[in-house]
């Protein structure tokens, strides 16, 4: 796969140590790490958040935030020249010419007030002595080479007209305009949905092959690694624990941490037993419609964005229904409608036979108990000013429970979700993302719901924490016989946790059925393309890890 081992390395990092400011939880962001990239290969640096993987990329680019992070020791050799010892000016020249970088957030990485063409051209203006006509020609060529339609039109547009995927393509065009030897990609597809992710990965791979470039690809997703890597470096807490060829790392990992990471990937567990619990449905959604008005043109008709178009859904007691689909397909809107945060424009929502949409506020209140929600962002879903115990007890208190009983019950719930009871007297900021999500689950359970709505509950978490939270949800669901509406963009997770799956596209459920069937023998072309876009779909996770237990730190 590599075939380049004989060549001298393009980039060599030698015993690089980057110091963190005093008072951090560890002294170094990365410590004595060494690796090399040769031309014409893709090295994936993979690790969980806080492992220091981004710091390496930023150190190479000279983008470390001063004065918080500084290179304490070691060398970064680019074509045998030590970047660390260079003057600022030399570093800058080198950066534009030899190294290009793309970032995670395509929505904020472009200047909103500059036309796309001007932003790409700016790079050429600074680093080359091309004249206007040459620059314009190259800009158009770059836009075309990253697969954007109508280069002339794109050149003249402002960033807001472009989608996230298109912006990421523009970022790639900018990074590649000077034909760098090395491209550093820092989680370039994390903010994109699966379909767009697939396109961007393909694009990076194609361009890399065409130009024989070296690529350092930073990611947290082993699926992406399987898709794109020639070689892989696995990082943990500032150290490279394992580095080697992609085949070896993915299929015969040596280090226990790598094994644990791979084992925690979703979607390789034993197939779920088919869901049989028929009988009275708990919740029936009939013909739910919802649209939002878009900004109206002057004197014109108000255009409407349809986010839920004639949706039907049935959830039985104890059933987990998954909603999958790319961003903007209306999954969250549907969830918010069911939980009563949004009022749909039409349709019926029958909970145990009562139409919730016809109830006024007062009559609806008792039903709030029955449907509870776990939110996506563990950092925004807990009030930072309240103690954890109070956060959990607030719901029962609102329903008239005596505060002391509610607080005692909150402590029991904390233990149920795997946290110590003493956590009740602490504040949310003292907990990690995974722990906060556990608190969120405890809060939802506090009012004893019959239906739990989980809106992307693990998408903000690291893979190993993800699997723990998923297991907790699954376990609790069985123990309390909860029905669950589980929203996710990740089909691997849906396969692992859901009995029934609905695939959403443009506000419609295009395919609905048992998870096993929908995800293995899809009948709709859209479902099929979603499945094909899954990163690393050709990689079978080795069986021996599939059964290994992944729980280490919460």
């Amino acid at each position: 796969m590599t075939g380049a081992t004989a060549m001298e390395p393009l980039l060599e990092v030698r015993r690089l140590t980057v110091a963190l400011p005093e008072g951090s939880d560890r002294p170094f962001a990365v410590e004595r790490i060494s690796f090399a990239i040769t031309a014409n290969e893709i090295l994936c640096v993979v690790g969980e958040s806080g492992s220091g993987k981004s710091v390496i990329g930023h150190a190479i680019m000279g983008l470390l935030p001063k004065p918080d992070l500084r290179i304490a020791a070691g060398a970064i050799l680019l074509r045998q020249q030590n970047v660390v010892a260079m003057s600022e000016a030399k570093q800058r020249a080198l950066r534009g010419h030899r190294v290009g970088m793309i970032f995670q957030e395509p929505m904020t990485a472009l200047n909103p007030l500059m036309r796309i063409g001007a932003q790409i051209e700016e790079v050429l203006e600074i680093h080359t002595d091309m004249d206007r006509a040459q620059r314009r020609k190259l800009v158009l060529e770059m836009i075309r080479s990253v697969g954007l339609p109508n280069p002339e039109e794109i050149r003249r547009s402002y960033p807001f007209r472009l989608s996230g995927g298109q912006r990421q393509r523009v970022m790639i065009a900018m990074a590649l305009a000077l034909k760098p030897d090395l491209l550093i990609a820092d989680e370039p597809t994390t903010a994109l949905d699966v379909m767009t992710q697939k396109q961007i990965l393909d694009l990076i791979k194609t361009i890399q092959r065409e130009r024989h470039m070296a690529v350092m690809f930073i990611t947290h997703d082993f699926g992406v690694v399987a898709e794109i890597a020639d070689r892989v470096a696995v990082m943990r807490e500032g150290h490279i624990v394992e580095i080697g060829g992609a085949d070896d790392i993915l299929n015969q990992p040596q280090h226990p941490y790598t094994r644990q990471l791979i084992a925690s990937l979703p979607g390789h567990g034993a197939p779920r037993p088919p869901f049989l619990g028929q009988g009275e449905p708990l919740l029936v959604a009939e013909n739910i419609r919802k649209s939002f008005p878009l900004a109206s043109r002057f004197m014109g008709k108000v255009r409407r964005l349809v986010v839920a178009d004639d949706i039907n859904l049935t959830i039985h007691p104890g059933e987990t229904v998954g909603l999958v689909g790319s961003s903007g397909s209306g999954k969250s809107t549907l969830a918010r409608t069911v939980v009563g945060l949004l009022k749909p424009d039409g349709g019926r929502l029958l909970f145990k036979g009562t139409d919730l949409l016809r109830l006024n506020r007062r009559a609806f209140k008792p039903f709030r108990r029955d449907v509870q929600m776990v939110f996506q962002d563990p950092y925004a879903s807990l009030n930072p000013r309240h103690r954890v115990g109070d956060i959990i007890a607030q719901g029962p208190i609102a329903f008239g429970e005596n505060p002391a009983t509610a607080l005692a019950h909150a402590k029991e719930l904390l233990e149920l979700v795997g946290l110590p009871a003493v956590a009740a007297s602490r504040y949310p900021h003292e907990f990690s993302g995974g722990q906060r999500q556990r608190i969120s689950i405890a809060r939802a359970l506090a009012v004893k719901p019959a239906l739990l709505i989980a809106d992307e509950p693990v998408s903000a978490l690291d893979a190993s924490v993800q699997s723990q939270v998923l297991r907790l949800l699954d376990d609790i669901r069985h123990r309390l016989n909860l029905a669950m509406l589980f929203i996710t963009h990740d089909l691997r997770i849906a396969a692992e946790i859901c009995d029934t799956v609905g695939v959403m596209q443009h506000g419609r459920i295009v395919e609905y059925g048992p998870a096993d069937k929908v995800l293995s023998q899809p009948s709709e072309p859209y479902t099929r393309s979603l499945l094909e876009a899954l990163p690393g779909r050709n990689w079978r996770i080795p069986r021996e890890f599939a059964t290994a237990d992944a729980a280490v730190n919460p």
Partner: protein
Amino acid sequence: MPTDFIRAFQRNRGAVFGVVVLGLMLLLAIFADLLFPTSPWDMTAAPFTPPFDASAWLGTDTLGRDIASGIAHGARVSLLVGVVATAVAVTVGVLLGAIAGYHGGRIDSAIVHFTELFQTIPNFVLVVVTVAIFTPSLFSIVGAIALVSWPPLARLVRGEFLSLREREFVQAAITSGQSTTTIILRQILPNSLSPIIVSASLMVATSILLESSLSFLGLGDPNAMTWGFMIGSARTVLRQAWWMSFFPGVAILLTVLALNLIGEGLNDAFNPRLRRGRRT
């Protein structure tokens, strides 16, 4: 957490200076009757006595009234007006801002337009007119100052509420059946408290300036000795007797400066803590 906050506040030397100055002003106001038992309106020494005289160490004014005594008693009125007017303005502003920001839609636009109505009239003109209509008294002055002070605060609180009500913890509170009042008071308000406190501390300073300006124009409470009145009555003899307007002016300057420094210190102390809190 509070010790953290105090430490962050103490790091700002200006803010500590502000607290000290304001503390001294407060003591002066509280003990004005003990320090200067005679009424500030009484003649205590020869008119036009220059400062650092044995009988009146900051001098006397055109009618022989002790300037030091005037400053001490004036501090009462200034601080009282500043604090009470701010309290009223904060109550009204927070209430309207919270309702507008939380409910949005028609309620929001009605309140915003109502706020704009007040913001389009020049503040000082509105204060002068209001006080003139209701005859100058402490009550009408406080009311008039509060009347012009609440709109910016209402807008600030509205903005905070608009963004906070979309946060997931607020939505979680809605789904767990909490009432609107509980959500506004217990979930959202505590999270928007820091900008409110900062702007309130600055508002006290503005109120003091407004009250002084009113007194300067002769629209102050005729029964209360105030700094603005002292400056106003001394302006005709500014070139012969500088001290008559100078010392009350210094009192205003120090108090307003102290309040501004405290406001800035509070702002600095609140912000890094929030940032740190979010990251961990």
